[in-house]
């Protein structure tokens, strides 16, 4: 999970109550807009089944339009993931009211639930668990 530090400063301490076997890694960013295409792709190269970008809600970005920029970049990378064959649904962006810990926890649960639907990443588990979508 790539997250703006203003959106949530405590993502790394979120309990993964829905799946004990899940592993989550977090990357703190000064603003979600700083996330580059290649950062997101390399997260998949590193074995991620899903990647989430967490931004501040519209109108609450300290830098004005960082969340909008992040949203557009994520949209572009989702298209690229479709081209790659991983499927753009593995990458999601969520906007939250800054420091809403409950919303963060729900996003994690929803992401893991989404993986039940789309399957594990074929790039991370080549040949062993083909993607469903």
């Amino acid at each position, binding site marked *: 999970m790539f997250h703006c530090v203003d959106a949530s400063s405590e993502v790394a301490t979120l309990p993964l109550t829905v799946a004990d076997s899940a592993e989550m890694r977090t990357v703190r960013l000064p603003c979600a807009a700083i996330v580059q295409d290649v950062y997101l792709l390399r997260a998949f190269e590193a074995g991620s089944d899903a990647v989430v970008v967490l931004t501040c809600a519209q109108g609450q970005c300290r830098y004005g339009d960082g969340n909008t920029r992040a949203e557009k970049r994520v949209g572009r990378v989702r298209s690229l993931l479709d081209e790659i064959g991983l499927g753009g649904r593995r990458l999601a962006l969520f906007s939250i009211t800054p420091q809403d810990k409950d919303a963060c926890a729900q996003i994690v649960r929803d992401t893991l639930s989404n993986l039940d639907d789309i399957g594990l990443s074929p*790039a991370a588990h080549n040949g062993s668990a083909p993607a469903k979508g």
Partner: protein
Amino acid sequence: MIVAEKKPLAEIKKAVAPYNKLLILGCGTCVKTCFAGGPDEVATMASALRLAFKIDGKKIEVEEQTVERQCEDEFIQEAAPGVARNAAVLSLACGAGVQAIARRYGRTPVLPGVNTTFIGTLESQGVFTEECAGCGDCVLATFGGICPITRCSKKLLNGPCGGSRNGKCEVAPDIDCAWQLIIDRLKVLGQMSNLRTYIPPKDWRPSNAGGPRKLVREDLIV
């Protein structure tokens, strides 16, 4: 700048499929400026190809490098070690850069990773617009700095035609009528008299209609 855009990944993947060691070579000039072939795009392409081939169960080694300008031999010599280590080069430069690399490294396959589209400007953030056709005989002085060759859909030198509506071209509503722009600009400059002279049919020989062009500056040749 010369504006380019990434080719579809499927096309690139098919082109590089025969090779297991690939150098992705970017260019730090025009294509970097239009976000098609600078170091960021090289890194993204490398990652995308590694992922795509991993899904297929194929191993590919990808090396990344960006030179300042791929269209100048002086700069592309820096790529020699990388080219030597790899079976092929995927160039993210314009067509001139791809050909310069192919000429310098004659035994290595060089593949284009972008489609070179036009000579243009950055109209606004993220919007690139064609503004020069490289016709070889610039007429901008007559037309107030607005090119009818490039920006009029019909390339009219004695316009406007009857298809201008509210400043837009009949070809598409999002295209400004170049002749509306020309007239507006000449009015501001007080040069409407420029349009009272008939412009004869354009001599296209200085353009690429006369074959590949070459500019020789004897004073620079040593």
